């Protein structure tokens, strides 16, 4: 669904379909603002270290609406698909279950497979969570994927041994919503 500029009327115009249809469409977009929220529950997501950007196990859709009637969240690819073009705000929060391996924890956003935003912290061997937000313009069919990535340190250097680290259950969440056409 595309935004069309609201009609401008002049004296003498008849208020018919030419005015009614665009007003109606615009109200439909604003009234059913594109938005999708998902959470990962009830299981934790276990990650392999230094394995590139990985999906979060989002398995519960809390809100998913778009004036096109099409779903925004794709449960198989664990990402959001734009159905109505515009400026979107993405917000995600991940709670990491830390361990003693140190290193870097990161979560963020990929747009069409390219990383465009991330938040990093160290791995302090305790629970730690923080949000990562992004603003971007999405065209129809563009994708926005929340991802997680981590890499431990071993003996002061980044390690590559295959050890997993978990995200806390019920905490990971992600949302995108249209904030401007």
């Amino acid at each position, binding site marked *: 669904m595309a*935004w069309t*500029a*609201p*009609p*401008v*009327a*002049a*004296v*003498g*115009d008849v*208020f018919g379909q030419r*005015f009614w249809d665009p*007003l109606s469409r*615009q*109200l439909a*977009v*604003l009234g059913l603002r594109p938005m999708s929220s998902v959470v990962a529950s009830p299981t934790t997501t276990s990650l392999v270290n230094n394995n590139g950007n990985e999906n979060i196990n989002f398995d519960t859709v809390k809100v998913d609406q778009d004036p096109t009637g099409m779903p925004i969240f794709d449960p198989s690819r664990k990402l959001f698909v734009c159905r109505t073009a515009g*400026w979107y*705000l993405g*917000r995600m929060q991940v709670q990491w279950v830390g361990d003693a391996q140190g290193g*870097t924890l990161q979560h*963020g956003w990929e747009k069409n497979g390219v*990383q*465009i*935003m*991330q*938040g*990093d*912290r*160290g791995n*302090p061997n305790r629970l730690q969570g*923080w*949000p*990562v*937000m*992004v*603003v*971007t*313009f999405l065209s129809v069919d563009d994708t926005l994927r929340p991802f997680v990535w981590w890499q431990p340190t071993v003996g002061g250097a980044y390690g590559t041994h295959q050890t997993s680290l978990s995200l806390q259950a019920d905490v990971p969440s992600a949302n995108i919503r249209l*904030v*401007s*056409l």
Partner: protein
Amino acid sequence: VSWVTPPVKAVGDVLYAADVNTLSGDLTLLATPPMASAYKTATQSIANVTGTNLVLDTVLMDQDPTGSAIYNSGTGVFTIRTAGAYSAEGQVQWQANGSSTGTAQAAIRKNGTANVVQSVADGQNIVESSPVVMEAQRFVVGDTLQLRCFQDSGAARTVDNQTQGTFMVLRFESL
């Protein structure tokens, strides 16, 4: 374009062109509300124990019905052009500096004098993000907001320029 209270009509009333244009103008304001977002593509060194305003050098988007720019990429200041309730999100991404002491902080400062929101985390010798979220509050025309940071690691620490890791967005929520 500014907000005009939509007309209320009674049976038998005539619908004038001005009534239609009022609806169109209000819809435009709601669909393309005041909003600006900018991020860093250049690093910035932050001295130890020195609150510092950040200049976000690259404007992602900037729109206001007045036609005036909200964000000034030379000063790092967001200026309210249309009164209303606004929310904001931001993040400061720090580089490692060899120190694991002190704190890493981010804030949004109003009118150059007081922080309206602030986040504080343990300083880590690693790339580290400091996100900050300002929930909706009301502002008047001319109010200013700016992303700000602070660190007390014991040495200078650099704010990073990866992707949009250091950014702020100011968003109109309601009249």
